[in-house]
Structure formats: C-alpha cells, structure tokens
C-alpha cells in the first residue's frame, strides 16, 4: 500500500475531493499547511509599513491506497488540482507497511 500526499491550492480542494471520489477513493485526510516555493509570497502593508508573507496557504491531502490504485489516484489529483499557474503544488508517495481500521481492527487492504 502507498500513502499519497498532495499539497494543493486551497480552493482546488472541492475539485480534488470530487475527482478522488470518482476514482474510487473512499476516505482521505486533509490538513491546512503553508507552503514555501517558487510561487513566492507577497508583500502586505499595514499602517504604512511593509512585511513579507513568505508562506502561502495550502491544503495537504493524504490518502492511503492499494498499490494498484496509486497511478490512477495520482493522475486524478494532478488533473483536478492543476490550474497551470505557479504554486499548484506537489504529490509524493511513500510506502505504507501496514494499515489498521481502528473501529474493527481490520488490517491491510480491508482497512482502506
């Protein structure tokens, strides 16, 4: 099994969620993060003084999926989250050793 982690633009979340559902994903976990990258931050002004906001709000999506589903899910996210503007984000995968569903204690693919 693989954990797919995607950093996306916050306002693309609904599209990504829908795409993942369409791709057969039944569960996922998201969190609010801030990103630093090529997109750069921006300068704000307050009472005449400036300050730099280096970190841009992003949403992190985490999904554990079966090996077989990895490519499909990565593609689904890539397409749904793409605006073609800088800062669209990244997706990476890591290998999951074991997975447990807390409610039932099921393990492995059954737990997804």
């Amino acid at each position: 099994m693989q954990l797919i982690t995607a950093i996306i633009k916050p306002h693309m979340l609904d599209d990504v969620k829908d795409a993942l559902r369409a791709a057969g994903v039944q569960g996922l976990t998201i969190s609010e993060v801030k990103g630093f990258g090529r997109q750069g931050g921006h300068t704000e002004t307050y009472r005449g003084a400036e300050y730099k906001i280096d970190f841009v709000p992003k949403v992190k999506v985490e999904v554990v999926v079966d090996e077989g589903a990895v490519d499909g899910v990565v593609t689904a996210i890539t397409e749904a989250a793409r605006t073609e503007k800088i800062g669209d984000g990244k997706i990476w995968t890591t290998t999951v050793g074991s997975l447990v569903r807390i409610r039932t204690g099921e393990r492995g693919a059954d737990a997804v």
Partner: protein
Amino acid sequence: MRQRLLTGAGLVGVFTLLSATPALAQDEGVTADAVQAALDNIWILIAATLVIFMQAGFALVEAGLTRAKNVANIMMKNLMDFAAGVLAFAAVGFAFAYGPGNDFIGTEGFFLSSSTFSEGFGTLTTPTFFIFQVAFAATAATIVSGAMAERTKFKSYFIYSIVLSGVIYPIVVHWTWGGGWLSQLDTPFHDFAGSTIVHSVGGWAALMGAIILGPRIGKYGEDGKPRAIPGHSIPFALVGVFILLVGWFGFNPGSQLAADPVVGQIAVATVIAAAAGAVTAMATIWIRGGKPDVAMTGNGVLAGLVGVTAGCGVLDNWGALIAGAVAGVLVVFAVLFFDRVGVDDPVGAISVHGVCGVWGTLAVGLFATDGGLLYGDGADQLITQLIGVVAVGAFTLVTAGALFMAIKATVGLRVSAEEEIEGLDVLEHGTAGYGPDMLVGAGAVGR
C-alpha cells in the same frame, strides 16, 4: 464668549463660581421656557449620540454575518460611509433636505449656511437639529454595505455612499420631514422616525446594489440552488443587534424632536415591537427550518424595530406588538425569497430595511389609533402611506440603480474573482483583518 475662551472649561479659578455659564445666568433667574429649550437640545443631542452609536451596531452585524477574509473591508465601509456621509450631508444634503426650495428639493443653505438656518428648528438650534439629522443620513447610507458585502470595490462603494447621503436620501427627506409634497397631501404621509424615509431608502438602494453586483462566488450551486455561506462571527452579529436596539431608543423617541414625556410611550412601543419581532422570527424559522436560527432571530429584532419606526408615535401597545410580530414573520420569508430568486444579500438588509420598512409604513395606515383603517378611520391614511411607499421606492430604485450602473460603467463595481476568493482585506486594504494567530488557513476547508 470671550470669557469662556479665557477660562478653559469654564472655571475661572478655584472655588469661585463658574462664570459666563448658564449657571451664572440662573442667579438672575432663567425662565421655564429657556430650561425646556435647553432640555430639548440636550435630549436631542443624546438621542443623536445613540443613533450614531448604531454605526457600530451595523458594522458588527455586517462583519459577523460575512466571512473573516473580508472583515476589515466591511468595517472600513461602515466607517467611511459615516465619515463621507457626514461631510456630504453637511455640504449639500442638509440643504437639499431642509433648505428652502420647492416641493421636491431644497435649493439653499449649502454648507450649513448660518444665514439660511438662522432661526433654528423650533426650540432646537440648527446644530442640534443637524446632528440628529446627519446621524439619520448615515444610517440610511450604511444599510447598503451589508447587502453588497464581500464583493464590492471599496472605491466604488465610497462614491455610492457620498451620493446617497448627499443627494438621494436628502431628497426623500425633503418630500416628507422637510415639508415637501408628501407632507402636503390632504392626509399627509406619516412616517414618524423613518421606516420608509430612512430604512426603505437604504433597503431599496441595497436591492439595486445586490442585483447589479450579482451574487458572491459560491452562493449558488451548479443546480442554481442557494447555498449557505455562514458568517464568521455570530457573537459580533448579536452584539451588533443589541447595539442597534439601544441606538433605536435614540432613533424613535428622539424623532419627537423635543423633550416631551410622550417619548416614554414611543420607547415602549419600540421595545415591544423588537421583542415581538425576535420571537416571531425565531418561531418562523424554527418551524420552517427545524432549528431556532440565531442570525435570523437577530434579523427579527431589527425587523420588529424597523416595523414600528414609522408608527411608534401613533400606535398603542397592541399596534406595536402586531407591527413587530408581523415584521418578524415577514423578514424570514423575505430572506428566503431573495435567496431563492438569486439576490444575494449576505446580511438580510433588503428584507429587514426594505420589506419591513414598507410594512411599518403601511402599518400606520392600518393601526394608527387616530387615522388607522382598523380603528374605523377609513382608508385615507393607508392610501397616503401607499403613495409614499411607492413614490419613495420608485425614486430610490431608479436613482440608486442609475448610480450603481454609472459606477459599474466607469470605475467598476465588483472586485476580480481572484480578489473575491482571496478576500478583500489583503487586496483592497493591504492586510488581513485578523492576525495570522487568529485566521485559520484562509477558510479553505469546508467551503
């Protein structure tokens, strides 16, 4: 007055009597008439202060019922329609409203010209009268910001608010309180404290603004169904409601324009209507939606208040109760209606001030203890009230509509979609309205 100049706040020396103050004059004996006049002026100044306090109430209601990313913008709009409104009303609005002129508009007395207004207004000095009136003008103007919230360019709103306070509202005042044509009908138009003159002017301008702007991004689903966009702070909204309630004790009783013991009854009518509006609005949304919605109940209080504003001087307690109770029901259905037909009014301003303003004005024709249809006094008053409602409504819809179209065609009315999504605070004003320690990740989740 030289003397006063010399003595700071009036104390010439330690432990001497005050000099050159009315206090001193009293040693020579003041007349009861003079004291009554002083009392009238003091009371109206206090009432005006309460009405000005309503600006904070409006700001909080509107801020509370919109999203955190636009909070600085909405506060700023409320501040600037007051500031710009005061200057515009002082420069030209007051002359249009109360200056000598024709039945339609005042044509003299710009810049508070003291020669034009040398006689004062009854026992009220011109400044006292002005401060009360300017507070009303600011109220009319500020109603609109809520309906246009979260998507209007700041610059454009600023222009609108100057024109409304300086021209549109004053003309309506001239027709009525200013002695113009509506006050000269056989059965003159009666709007004691401004259900139509203040509130529905604001409400109709808000309607045109909301229509011409279009709804906020995300307000309607792909199926065209309205989606809720919850406000970011119910406590702000309800504190705003409480402050408005408090301010209304200046708004309605102060409209007596004199320190007359009758103001007690006006206040009682006001509080009963507010309470009734709260209870019926709560009951209505509870029955219709399954839960006692808090924001809607807050709207109910304001609906009750607007509903009794026209009639608070001529309704008895039962009349006030009905005026408020009906307004509380009305506001719920109006909010749902505008939502359904695609008019996106984040705070319910059109329903509260427009719809209930109309209702309150008509209620006078129905329930006025002297002149009301239901008190067996015929339909004369009701017909006049209708004429007033229609005339003021039409005038405001047309002029405010033209104004917004003109702004749209020139400086533009609406911010870009990107700015709307990001929030107006950063892009229009430079910084978010909440510090990074308060604002959770751009409200991304669950939007």
